């Protein structure tokens, strides 16, 4: 064997070892769950074998059959079809909260860190005050005032979560701002906007993505709870939180599958987002 080949296999072995250390099976499973959930959220209505909204009261809580793998729900609707269709409403709310929060949070954090002084003080104390509202409470309040549905709770949760995002990002932006390369760019006469957009924010991107991932999980838990309480997505629309609630009577009557299956969908997706978010955060920290 030539020396070159020996070096190459050594490098390959090190490369393989490095890869194995970095990408854990847990991470792959989490990513797969998220990809699958996203696919179902997009294509759910096409995948559903039956009409998810067609009630058939003679099939009240009929259990699993070969044609209807998860059986029927409290109104005799196909549970599997409702789960597949419900993925969309269950995922689109958290997506909205995440997008609004990250945009607003990053904007407030970067401008506060960049300008400092009184502006920073005002933004920071403003964020501290918004901390006074627990997310769920603000969502219930918004739903009471503006009517039940997806929009009011999503906006309320976005407001309630923005301080959490902005506080972490502001710290990161302050650290980044103190780096010599920023001063070098300023000396060269680059505008603040250009430095922030082209250098500062891209350098914080790993943290932004990690936070967005974790936030999605939290928002999903809260929005599902709001739906469960009857203040979010309204029945008969298929939504995982709504499904837990409308089939809860089945738990006591011995037909736990419909309610549990919807709960399981929420938990699996949320756990996947939390694990992915945690790992992304760790990798971002390790790279620094």
């Amino acid at each position: 064997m030539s020396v070159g080949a020996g070096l190459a296999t050594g490098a390959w072995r090190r490369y393989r070892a490095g890869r194995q250390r970095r990408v854990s099976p847990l991470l792959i499973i989490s990513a797969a769950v998220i990809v699958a959930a996203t696919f179902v959220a997009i294509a759910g209505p096409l995948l559903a074998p039956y009409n998810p909204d067609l009630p058939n009261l003679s099939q009240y809580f009929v259990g699993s059959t070969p044609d209807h793998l998860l059986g029927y729900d409290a109104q005799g609707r196909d549970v599997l079809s409702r789960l597949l269709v419900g993925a969309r409403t269950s995922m689109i709310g958290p997506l909205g909260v995440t997008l609004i929060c990250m945009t607003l949070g990053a904007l407030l954090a970067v401008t506060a860190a960049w300008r400092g002084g009184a502006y920073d003080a005002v933004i920071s104390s403003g964020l501290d005050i918004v901390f006074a509202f627990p997310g769920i409470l603000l969502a219930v309040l918004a739903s009471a005032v503006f009517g039940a549905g997806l929009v009011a709770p999503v906006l309320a949760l976005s407001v309630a979560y923005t301080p959490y995002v902005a506080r972490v990002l502001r710290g990161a932006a302050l650290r980044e701002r103190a780096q010599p390369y920023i001063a070098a760019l300023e000396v060269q006469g680059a505008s603040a906007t250009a430095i922030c957009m082209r250098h500062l924010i891209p350098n914080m991107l790993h943290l932004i993505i990690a936070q967005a991932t974790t936030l999605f999980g939290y928002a999903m838990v809260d929005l599902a709870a709001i739906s469960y309480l009857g203040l979010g997505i309204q029945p008969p629309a298929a939504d995982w939180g709504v499904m837990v609630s409308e089939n809860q009577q089945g738990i006591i009557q011995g037909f736990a599958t419909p309610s549990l299956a919807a709960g399981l969908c929420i938990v699996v997706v949320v756990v996947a987002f939390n694990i992915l978010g945690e790992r992304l955060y760790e990798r971002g920290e390790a790279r620094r």
Partner: protein
Amino acid sequence: MRLRYFVRRLAMLIVSLLVASFVIFAAIYLAPGNPIAALSGGRSIPPDSLRVLEARYHLDQPFLVQYWFWLTNALHGNLGISITLRENVSDLIASRISTTAGLVLYSSILIIALGVGLGILSGLRPGLLDTSVLVITAISASLPAFVAAIVLILVFAVQLQWFPSIGNGVGFLDQVKHLTLPAFALAVSSLAIVARVTRSAIREEARREHVQTAVSRGIPTALLIWRHVLRNAAIPITTISGITIASLIAVAAVVEVVFGLAGLGAYLVLSAQSKDLAVVQGISLLLVTAFVAVNVLVDVLYVVLDPRVSLGSRQ
């Protein structure tokens, strides 16, 4: 320096509460629908009575004056009248507050006893126990309270029949029995988070030099853990316990609905559905106050445990 920190924190508390009360009042003020119509139940009212009603509820006054009336009344314990039950909101709240307080207290005890206990155990004993605690807490940390609740009902109320699944119960022991499943459902995710933070705090502390020195001096293990590891690890543990316990105050609403408990949160949800806005205002105000107060308490406790914090706040 400590005193200055406390005063600053107290001022922040008051400002937070003022802003929160303003937001709660303004939200309800802006809500579609006319309060007089809600009072009359939609019947038409002669103009004279309308004027009398408007004057009685200060509806003819500008927005800020109305806010001031509402706030001063609220501080005197008068939160208005529920339009569905025609009773004082304060009385309605008073009759339900003990259920919510009991539930949150019960959960807090579970979180501190089991969460910190599990964290210490798995932090000190690496191996099978530690690994299983890590896996279980990773999943239960993301478990929504209402999903935990239906699983607990299925296992402990329907199949094992150890605990009741609905209602408040009569008498102290029966009430505790009725609150057990709700308290576990409410505690489960916070418990997992507290256990994880405790575990890593213990690990971090056990690696530190002063602990290694103590080991080499031959200090008995129990004393070593109590005096050198736990005392320093107490700071992150207190913080995370406080934050998660404060968050229980709002999430309790969901658990109360699942278990049909007559608590504040369940009543808030019911009033939100039936648009009984005076009740929504009153309960929101109370819950926000409790939430902020617990958070301030945690911050104060944090300074007592770690004096470096108040020194840092000078800058």
